[in-house]
């Protein structure tokens, strides 16, 4: 996969900037700042990182919903970075998206059947009758009663709406689906239903997923590979097991250290025994990203050299890569809990 030769999607040097005003001055916000990734057919790549690090913008650039400032996007063997209008349309069919908000992403004035069939209509696929049949099959496949087609989205629960969104994404038989926090708003029992459905569909149809999520336990369950993003860049990527069991980048370690333990006998956060990798505060502004390593302002093992580009690329195993000057450094043990001193 890392070679990119057999890649379904290949992104190189992607940059997306947004014009913003900071204290009255016009500045560029670097939402995506030189990002590479590739995804193989039938593969799930998870993109993780704190909110605002550029995950959705990356996906929107790939889906050609936002104009990149620089970089190349190659999908199914052809460069799509500059395609427009009529030439983009066949590409759009092959890439679909399921959003987090099952409420906001479904038009409340359209019946479920119309929502699911919309892509078929736009691409003039099938007769009315054939479309209705396909909609019924899709609804059934995602676990809904085909008779739901006549109802409006507001009549459905969050989990059911997410199934509607998945049926809509499947209608055009895509080879690639972006799931942007698609299960994040769901209760665990419903989340598990939807995760299982996504896995089954991938097995049946061989679609690739770009799975954007902030829950690393969910990522571990669904993804083949994971890319950890910070301030518009990927700081580590690799097979899920490798990254979770042998993280290289201090930011990956910070994300893992922040996860609540699922065992009250082994509390990590509420116990006062502070994991030295745990990160404080918030990321810096993407308007003024730090020089060199973007994480250096919060990193417990940063040294002066971390401010100097380029940051070395370290490869722990084939395909498991991080960008860090001190991948083997250990932080000094943290003393007490961060708030303890004040109270």
């Amino acid at each position, binding site marked *: 996969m890392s070679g990119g030769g057999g890649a379904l999607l290949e992104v190189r040097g992607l940059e997306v900037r947004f014009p913003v005003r900071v204290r009255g001055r016009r500045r560029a916000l670097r939402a995506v700042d030189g990002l590479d990734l590739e995804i193989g057919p039938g593969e799930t790549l998870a993109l993780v990182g*704190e*909110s605002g690090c550029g995950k959705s913008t990356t996906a929107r650039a790939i889906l050609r919903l936002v104009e990149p400032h620089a970089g190349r996007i190659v999908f199914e063997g052809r460069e799509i970075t500059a395609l427009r209008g009529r030439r983009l349309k066949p590409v759009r069919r092959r890439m679909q998206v399921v959003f987090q908000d099952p409420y906001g992403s479904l038009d409340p004035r359209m019946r479920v059947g119309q929502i699911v069939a919309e892509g078929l209509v736009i691409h003039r696929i099938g007769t009315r009758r054939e479309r209705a049949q396909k909609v019924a099959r899709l609804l059934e496949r995602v676990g809904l009663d085909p008779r739901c087609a006549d109802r409006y989205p507001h009549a459905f*629960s*969050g*989990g*059911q709406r997410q199934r509607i969104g998945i049926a809509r994404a499947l209608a055009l038989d895509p080879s690639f689906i972006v799931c942007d926090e698609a299960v994040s708003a769901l*209760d*665990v*029992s*419903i*989340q*598990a*239903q939807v*995760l*299982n459905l996504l*896995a089954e569909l991938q097995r049946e149809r061989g679609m690739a997923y770009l799975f954007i999520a*902030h*829950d*690393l*336990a*969910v990522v*571990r*369950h669904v993804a083949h590979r994971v890319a950890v993003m910070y301030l518009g860049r990927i700081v580590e990527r690799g097979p899920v097991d490798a990254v*979770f069991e042998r993280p290289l980048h201090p930011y990956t370690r*910070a*994300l*893992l*250290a*922040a*996860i*609540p*333990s*699922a*065992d*009250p*006998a082994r*509390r*990590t*956060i*509420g*116990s*006062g*025994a*502070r994991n030295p990798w*745990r*990160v*404080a*505060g*918030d990321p810096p502004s993407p308007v003024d990203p730090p020089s060199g390593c973007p994480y250096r302002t919060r990193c417990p093992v940063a040294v002066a050299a971390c401010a100097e580009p380029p940051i070395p690329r370290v490869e722990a195993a084939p395909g498991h890569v991080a960008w860090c000057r001190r991948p083997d450094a250990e932080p000094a043990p943290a003393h007490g*809990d*961060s*708030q*303890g001193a*004040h*109270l």
Partner: protein
Amino acid sequence: MIGSRRAAADGARPDGVANAPLLRVTDLRLEVPGATGPVAAVDGVSLEIAAGRVLALVGESGSGKSLTALAIARLLPDGVVRRSGQLWFEGVGALERLPERAMRAVRGAEIGFVFQEPMSALNPVMRVGEQVREAIEAHRGRPRGRAARQRAIELLAQVGIPEPELRYRAYPHELSGGMKQRVCIAIALAAGPRLLLADEPTTALDVTVQAQVLELLAALRRRSSLAMLLITHDLGVVAELADGVAVMYAGRVVEQAPVEVLFRAPLHPYTVGLFRSLPRLDGPRGRLVPIPGSVPPPGERPAGCPFRNRCAAAVARCAEQEPRLESVAQRHAVACWRPGAVTP
């Protein structure tokens, strides 16, 4: 640390002080408007929280967690009615009988509230420090003027806000989500309450920031005898912070136990279902086992056991008779005709 928590779970505080209940909720029933008249959204809920202890209220959305907390603070939204139930608060008495004016004094001075969305609790056009100061001054016998300002800055520092003098002057939109939630916690703590009702306090935050806020809450309960009703749907948050857990389903408490017991040996099929549908960082990575279906809204809940239409262990009796919450061991209670029938 773990040793002292064990002791706490067995009924004594780590410092040896016996814990009389601070809050006791008995047989709470809350009704919301239904298609053909009022229907129960919360039904027969009884809870107890001891001073300095954290009781987690868990369950999927719609199970009645928020309404329960709002009923305790007597902040029920219009249209929601408390049909029955006692709310006894140590040193104050029956909250449900207090006149609104007296209740207003209890809110803040005795009971603080933190919500999921910090913005919903903050005034967007008022400096955050002033909001903390206002909360301090709102109560009789509290410092005013410059002393209150000084106290507000101290509070901001206590909840882990860097450069509190500077941040005092910030407006809510100038702060990150985590910082805003810290301000909300400072406001909730301003009058030194004995009970904090925290409704999904970290749900809207990034996991890194969630860890910081959980650390803060853990430090608060360690250093003071602040008790907490911690509402969450996240079992990880429960594992980190709670002493006891009450699992709610469809308006009822279906299982209640000390946290270690609940995680080690859950007995209600719903509790077991929650654990089995939870993706984990450790252990096998196989298929998740979801609970089929979803939480029925008030008014559409089945007779008998409210969980029976989603339950793998249901038998005829489950449709005929509603199981009551009954003790199966010391401090472990379950409302199920077949406790333990579904294994984790």
